[in-house]
């Protein structure tokens, strides 16, 4: 729906805004590695779509909070300047559910966002 300007939005709509496509992911707030959560596979699909899980399994993703998901969460947190915890904390989930561009952040395993950049902590220097 294209509205010429905000005042053109009918008042009846304002009280019936449909839920966002990813609002359900808020239920995963606080999920931790090593456990299984109903529907977590959908979140894995999200991370796979945006390049954070490089390869989809031959069948479907499981609902396990596994190493691949934790790694994806860490890369996501780095890209979005969040605290890197590997956990689905409040701040991370709040970013995940934000509307966004459909283009992947990591394409063919590479990204120029933060997670693909040189890590300062690994810097080694040699004095001349």
């Amino acid at each position: 729906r294209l509205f010429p300007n905000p005042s053109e939005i009918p008042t009846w709509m304002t009280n019936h805004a449909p839920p966002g496509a990813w609002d359900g992911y808020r239920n995963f707030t606080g999920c931790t590695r090593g456990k299984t959560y109903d529907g977590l596979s959908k979140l894995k699909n999200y991370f796979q779509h945006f390049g954070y899980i490089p390869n989809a399994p031959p069948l479907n993703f499981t609902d396990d909070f596994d190493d691949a998901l934790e790694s994806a969460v860490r890369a996501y947190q780095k890209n979005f300047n969040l605290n890197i915890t590997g956990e689905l904390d409040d701040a991370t989930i709040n970013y995940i559910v934000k509307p966004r561009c459909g283009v992947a952040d990591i394409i063919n395993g590479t990204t120029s966002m933060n997670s693909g950049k040189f890590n300062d902590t690994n810097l080694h220097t040699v004095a001349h």
Partner: protein
Amino acid sequence: YAFFPGKPRWPAGTRTLTYAFDPNENLDDATKQVFANAFNQWSKVTTITFTETTSYRSADIKIGFYSGDHGDGEPFDGVLGTLAHAFSPTDGRFHLDKSEDWVVNGDVRESSLSNAIDLESVAVHEIGHVLGLGHSSVEEAIMYPTISSRTRKVELEEDDIKGIQELYGSNPNFNGTTTATTSRDRDSSYGGRR
């Protein structure tokens, strides 16, 4: 700033790119003007200019609003979620999710609809992809991947400008200054570390 893998760009020497709207859409002039404004944000800083053409088939950039599965392997997902996507050079496809509540003009921050999305803000971002930019981790940049509803963000940030000028050079008339304007509403999650 970032580029797509392999740093694809429009061919050297490209000065003008044509764009056209899917003829099935019958977009009004006000909506078309929003896209013209979005293209202009990039023209101001680099060497590429954009002109509308009525020939959809031959246009370099093809713009359309679609719902769900629309044949490119990247189905849209309804309200919010994915808002739009565009392909790297020289593909030219630029698709927007028809399910969104797009605000064409006026101050989107004033919208009473919590799902209202500013069309020009998203258009400026997607044109960045059409030209060859990937996503940036700089939150103030146009090429940052997310945008909250009821938010307007149309001015290129230094990060965007450096990226596009690395690909195509600088507009000789660009005076090197730009003002980033971002307004935020609804979302309280901007407390992340920058």
